[in-house]
């Protein structure tokens, strides 16, 4: 490693654009994020906010063309844009692993589950075929699947089981950074709780740093240490779990909480955020949230707010708040 650092991952001013048919899709617009070792950061936002794109950028898996990536991503202090494709392959699945959103389509239908887990082990550890198969069996047991089911194919498993397999695969080489992209979205609620518990325990066991990508504030409250709220490819608010939940600042974050049902008063109506996320090919000039913001001023519509610190680690990109 080039330098010692306290951060497992640092993202600086990351831009991702897709150039499609003369249009430019601005998927990420200058995201900066730091992930301390052992910490879990939640990346929260609506569909299309750029959460998955952020995850894929860290693995350098943005398809290019049409994708164009600018900015800096440091994994354990090392800039991944300077690495060769071969070096990148030793990082993927080994140092940085990703759990993908849809377990139904994330597994190869023509390979047995055991083979798919053993494959990642053999890629990164110098061990034989047999040992890798045994270790893959261990991983299956760890996620609660009997090892003798390893010879079966993905279509013989239920959705929750498949997600467990995907998790086993991601953790097989004990990565230092785990990117969990909506790991429970495709699962039903009872299974969600099980899978979350498992992820939390395994994270502790392997002492991983984690990025939890989700749109579910309940999951955030359960698992994350810090939270980044993403809107239209930018972070609009960042802070500790307490900052975000108890000292909610950005109108968008306020809106997100307003859209949650209140368990104490079930007769209360939900307060959805009006409107839709702006078209990423045609972002508004000022604050991207201004068209939907109930408190937007003239300044919001013309000038994009920079992130400003409003106490401790709590930062917010909104003209309503002043530095301090």
């Amino acid at each position, binding site marked *: 490693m080039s330098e010692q650092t306290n951060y497992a991952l640092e993202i600086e001013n990351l831009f991702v654009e897709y150039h499609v048919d003369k249009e430019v899709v601005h998927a990420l617009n200058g995201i900066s994020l730091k992930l301390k070792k052992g910490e879990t950061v939640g990346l929260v936002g609506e569909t299309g906010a750029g959460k998955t794109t952020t995850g894929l950028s860290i693995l350098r898996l943005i398809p290019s063309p049409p994708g164009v990536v600018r900015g800096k991503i440091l994994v354990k202090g090392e800039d991944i844009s300077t690495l060769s494709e071969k070096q990148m392959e030793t990082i993927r699945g080994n140092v940085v692993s990703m759990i993908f959103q849809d377990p139904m389509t*994330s597994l*190869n239908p*023509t390979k047995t589950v055991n083979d798919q887990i053993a*494959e990642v082990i053999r890629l990164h550890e110098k061990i034989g075929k047999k040992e890798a198969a045994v270790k893959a069996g261990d991983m299956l047991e760890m996620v609660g699947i009997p090892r003798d089911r390893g010879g079966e194919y993905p279509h013989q498993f239920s959705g929750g089981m498949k997600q467990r397999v995907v998790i086993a*695969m991601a953790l097989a080489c004990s990565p230092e950074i785990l990117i969990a992209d909506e790991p429970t979205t495709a699962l039903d609620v009872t299974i969600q709780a099980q899978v979350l518990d498992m992820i939390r325990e395994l994270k502790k066991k392997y002492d991983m740093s984690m990025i939890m990508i989700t749109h579910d504030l309940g999951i955030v409250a359960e698992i994350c240490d810090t939270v980044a709220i993403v809107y239209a490819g930018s972070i609009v608010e960042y802070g500790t779990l307490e900052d975000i939940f108890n000292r909610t600042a950005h109108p968008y974050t306020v809106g997100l909480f307003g859209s949650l049902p209140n368990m104490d008063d079930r007769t209360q109506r939900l307060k959805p955020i009006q409107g839709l996320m702006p078209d990423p090919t045609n972002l508004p000039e000022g604050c991207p949230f201004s068209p939907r913001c109930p408190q937007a001023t003239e300044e919001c519509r013309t000038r994009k707010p920079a992130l400003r610190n409003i106490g401790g680690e709590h930062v917010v990109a909104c003209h309503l708040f002043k530095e301090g």
Partner: protein
Amino acid sequence: MLKYIAKRLLAMIPVILGVTLIVYLIMSLAPGDPARTILGELATEEQVNELREEMGLNDPIIVQYFRYIWNLLHGDLGRSYQSRIDVSTEIFSRFPNTIKLALAASLFSVILALPLGIIAAVKQNTFFDSFSMFVAIIGISCPTFWFGLILILVFAVNLKWFPVSGQVDNFRGMVLPALTLAFNSMAAMARVTRSSMLEVIRQDYIRTARAKGVSQRNVILQHAVPNAMIPTVTVIGLRIGGLLAGAVICETVFSWPGIGRLLVQSIQSRNTPVVLGCIIIFSICFSLVNLIVDILYAFIDPRIKSQYQ
């Protein structure tokens, strides 16, 4: 699995009976008189009638057909009207030649088509992609007889690299006929390979494989290709079946002594037993190739295997 294969083999029987019925009816509807053809223009009406009686041609068609089927069930394909030898002898002396040609052509087309289709998909929208699809379009649109003649003209007549007509027992003599036969099916296979590869490389599990650290090359070869093989193998199977039938034109162009040419000659001389024999062989081959393809599916895709009970 064995039960499945047995079932499929049994299902071939009605198919082949149906094929014989249709061909028998068509042959008997066609103008001309086999007895007259055999005896020639100079024979008297009496002689022709005598022969018709002897060959059973005066019976109703349905009676003739059932007599044919009865003999067929006893393994008797009848005799050639012309050479008077057993049809089975006549066919099986030529059948190996057709198989040889078809196998060589299948080999050529698969070996050329798979890499062409795979690389075209991986390098989509590049020069290589356009080029290989251009070749494929030509392959699909250009008629076999014409392509065969061009190959003869260029490589046999002008460059003298290969003999003008096909030669069964040496490799050089097989190259041109096999290439001619292969070109068309190669084009179809390449196109299907490309499109199914394009579909597969956009799948989530390909991204998963890349995220595991699998190299681009192995992602394509070990993850994408096996999944793209189902549609490709279907087309390969159909085409190999078709290669046997396609041999009809190719064998004629290269005067290749196979059953394709035998079939054409027999149709021209209204030699019904030989025509029927050839068609039966073709349909058996076609059905068998399809069965093999269906069995291959099970090895490619475990989801299909579990359905074969």
